[in-house]
């Protein structure tokens, strides 16, 4: 899994590229936790280049959402492909995390 991070004030944009499963979970968790620990309270996770996700990946996203919520922060998931979006919807993620079509829809 490749992770590209862009920082802008308290907002961190993490673009993931690769299959988001158990193999990728630990490194993504560590990277996103590092951003939160570094004081970023708005996290935008771009899944445009993620062709596959399962509950291991979803667990990492939900875990980061919970951490941010406890810290008064917010999280957005953007760019999910239809196959990934199906898995997100089946798990109920869009009911708690804002899932948007693209980065441009993230409120400024």
């Amino acid at each position, binding site marked *: 899994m490749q992770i590209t991070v862009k920082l802008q004030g308290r907002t961190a944009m993490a673009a993931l590229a690769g299959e988001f499963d*158990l193999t990728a979970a630990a490194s993504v968790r560590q990277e996103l936790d590092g951003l939160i620990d570094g004081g970023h309270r708005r996290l935008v996770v771009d899944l445009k280049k993620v062709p596959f996700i*399962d509950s291991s990946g979803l667990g990492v996203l939900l875990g980061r959402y919970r951490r941010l919520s406890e810290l008064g922060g917010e999280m957005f998931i953007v760019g999910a492909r239809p*196959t990934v979006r199906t898995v997100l919807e089946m798990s109920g993620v869009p009911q708690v995390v804002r899932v948007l079509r693209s980065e441009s829809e993230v409120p400024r």
Partner: protein
Amino acid sequence: MANHFELHCPSRAENVGLCRVSAATFAANAGFTVAEIEEIKVAVSEAVSNVVVHAYPNAEGAMVLRCEEMEDGIQISVSDQGVGIEDIAQARQASFSTDPERMGLGFVFMESFSDEFAVESTPGRGTRVEMRKRREAPAEAS
């Protein structure tokens, strides 16, 4: 003889992708649609991840993925010889997980993405998950 394969490998995270891709390739050869193959990939990924995470606590053990073509689809099984599941009914509930970072959705996805689903487990002896997926019936010629 129906087409089939068995993949024997250690319960390592890196083998989750190997099992997923192997099952997806088999399903593609068996005539499943792209959408059906995506569902099979999620189901297999969940079954194999469960073995890696839960079957052999703090250790590595054997796991076997078996795919077999049936007349109307495929049968996929994932088995291990690990600690087994004490309470299968509880494990199959959404949001039940012994690991706070996991969502407890593994069995939910396996069940949702297959047409028939069964899990057999004996504590101390291991677990076997079996999923059957039927091919979408081809549209009738008009």
